[in-house]
């Protein structure tokens, strides 16, 4: 490479990093408040983790009776969020639906943030995180293909890699003002679609394949996982996109939001049908297999810890579904946003608390021990959410200017001022 070219490249790189620095450090007051808030959450989480580091998982509400709790519940919900990014990719790249196409990269970044949170939650749940290398090939002894946990590690990291690859390739293309080559990114985009669905199916199978836990051992589990993910993930996207529209120069068309809302509505409808099918089959058949379901919805032998939460979830989901269904409310932004929030919260309750925990209640020996997260457990989880949101915020601070054309490579033709 000639010397001149070399120095030019170096200058470009230096320019890029100074741009990044400016983007991350400068912003409106609300940006500083938001970042400081997230840093505070992370700080609290780290402080609470100090207790877990010192005393072990005993500081959580988990016991031998209910051996997974809030961490795995959050993990399950966030895998759904990550998988839902594919719903933005399908209309954007397969059907060439323009308005969503611009949003697809933001969806990918959300997926990456969600996956990072997933990996954090799983790591926090381990008794010996420093032994993680035991699952690696060559130096460890991964129980592949027998253990679904290995499958999950594979598909999650694969999805992380694919998402990173697609979004980086597209963004770098825009930044350098080079047209992205379809033959390069399309195969990866096409691969990412089944992969995203696979991520959530494998996570469902993680729970699904356990004969010991009748609550999870039902064939409709994976479809239900997908349906609930495809309603909560895009609903979260709608809220985030409106915030982006409000605080940045990024244009998000109403058309795109309504299109995504349609997806949410259909997915939630299917989710409710699946839930009904599951509840009917279990309750009408009867037998001891129904115990966890009865515990969840009605309480068992006087223990009713989750009843109010699951009914809140069901009501929220139904309300959100109806608000998206009725023509008058689905175009009104107040009810529209309310529906989104209802669905995100509803699905979080359904999958976070209402899915993982009742699988353990009663235990295979019929003991009922009611799980409730402890304060440090909650704070650690909040810290992880803070870290994920901080990552997403900072990533958007770089990504959005690139997408809007505010940030370009040194010497580009169409640089706009900040």
């Amino acid at each position, binding site marked *: 490479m000639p010397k001149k070219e070399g120095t030019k490249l170096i200058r470009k790189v230096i320019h890029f990093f100074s741009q990044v620095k400016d983007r991350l450090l400068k912003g409106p007051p609300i940006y500083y408040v938001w970042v400081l808030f997230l840093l505070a959450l992370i700080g609290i989480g780290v402080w609470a983790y100090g207790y877990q580091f010192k005393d072990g998982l005993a500081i959580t509400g988990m016991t031998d009776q209910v051996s997974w709790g809030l961490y795995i519940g959050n993990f399950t919900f966030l895998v759904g969020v990550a998988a839902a990014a594919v719903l933005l990719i399908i209309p954007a790249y397969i059907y060439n639906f323009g308005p969503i196409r611009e949003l697809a990269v933001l969806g990918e970044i959300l997926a990456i943030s969600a996956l990072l949170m997933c990996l954090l939650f799983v790591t926090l749940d*381990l*008794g010996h995180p420093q*032994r993680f290398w*035991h699952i690696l090939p060559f130096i460890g*002894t*991964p129980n592949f293909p027998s*253990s679904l946990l290995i499958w999950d590690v594979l598909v999650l990291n694969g999805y992380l890699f694919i998402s990173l690859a697609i979004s980086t390739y597209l963004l770098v293309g825009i930044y350098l003002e080079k047209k992205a080559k379809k033959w390069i990114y399309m195969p990866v985009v096409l691969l990412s679609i089944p992969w995203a669905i696979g991520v959530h199916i494998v996570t469902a199978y993680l729970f699904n394949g356990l004969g010991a836990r009748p609550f999870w051992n039902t064939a409709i589990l994976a479809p239900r996982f997908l349906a609930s993910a495809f309603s909560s993930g895009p609903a979260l996207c709608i809220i985030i996109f409106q915030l982006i529209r409000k605080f940045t120069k990024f244009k998000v068309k109403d058309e795109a939001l309504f299109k995504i809302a349609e997806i949410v509505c259909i997915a939630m409808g299917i989710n409710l049908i699946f839930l009904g099918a599951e509840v009917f089959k279990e309750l009408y058949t009867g037998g001891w297999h129904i115990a966890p379901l009865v515990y969840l919805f009605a309480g068992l032998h006087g223990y009713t810890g989750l009843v109010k939460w699951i009914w809140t979830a069901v009501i929220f989901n139904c309300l959100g579904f109806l608000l998206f269904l009725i023509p008058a409310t689905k175009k009104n932004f107040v009810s529209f946003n309310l529906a989104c929030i209802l669905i995100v919260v509803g699905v979080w309750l359904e999958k976070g608390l209402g899915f993982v925990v009742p699988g353990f209640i009663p235990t295979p020996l019929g003991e009922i021990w009611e799980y409730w997260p402890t304060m440090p457990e909650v704070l650690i989880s909040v810290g992880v959410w803070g870290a994920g949101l901080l990552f997403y915020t900072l990533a958007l601070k770089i990504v959005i200017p690139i997408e809007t054309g505010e940030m370009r490579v040194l010497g580009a033709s169409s640089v706009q001022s900040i």
Partner: protein
Amino acid sequence: MKTEYGNAMSRRTFLKAGGIASASLALGGCGLGEKLLPGDFLKEFVQSHFKEMRPDEIKEVKQRLQKQYQKKYGREFILGTEPPFPDVLFAYGLDLSRCIGCRRCVYACVQENNQSRRPQIQWIRVLRFKKGTMNFEESEHYYEAGMVPKEGYYTMPIQCQNCENPPCVKVCPTKATWKEPDGIVVIDYNWCIGCRYCMAACPYWARRFNFAEPEIPTEELNTNLHYLGNRPRMRGVVEKCTFCVQRTRRGRYPACVEVCPVGARKFGNILDPASEISLVLENQRVFRLKEDLDTQPKFYYFFSI
């Protein structure tokens, strides 16, 4: 005697040796290695899976663990790694018509297998049922101490069933738990990452997790240890009944069998037609828990009267 363990140096060992070398170089280079990370900590960190250790590695690990236990508890330990006997498949029988629910087995097991006293870990759970019922949900796990047998009730102790088709082994992501040729499902506590997937998979609620650092009074320690059995565990790993591998691999009966005051517990080699357990299977009507799951427990319940 056939040994399962002790393979030739594998690619894995080679890679790991490289890892140790580079790690110790890096740490040693700055002279902080020994201070920050004691050599034993590092050795424990890079320790191999039990089944992949060469005999000299096993010897080294045994010495290190013995030293470590002695330092922690101030007592001498005998740490064995006896391989399975050839042509032996262990099975267990429990006579429900004899069991009186005295929980002697629970505490003998705690003592023999060095289970944590605080927080309390017990591998055996005794369930009490009203006569005529057999619904786990209606069983009593925490019935008060009192004179037993109590009229109108029967009791059923449940522990690891050492399944022939164990779902816990199937799901373990690191192969840290496996079924030995003599049928015992064991755990390498130094290989378990503590994900607790096996606990979710076990239909018999037989596995326990060390949520906190286990506490055992020094004078109550059992110093006859087996690597795969009752050696003191660390925080953050799963443990379970191994049919007292430290006793049965040395020819003895499990502790719960010997302590049972009514002789309800039977143990032996199912491949030997003259063993007690074979005669139980031949002459008694036995059943296994949750047969529909096809876990094929080697733990048989029967009613002799």
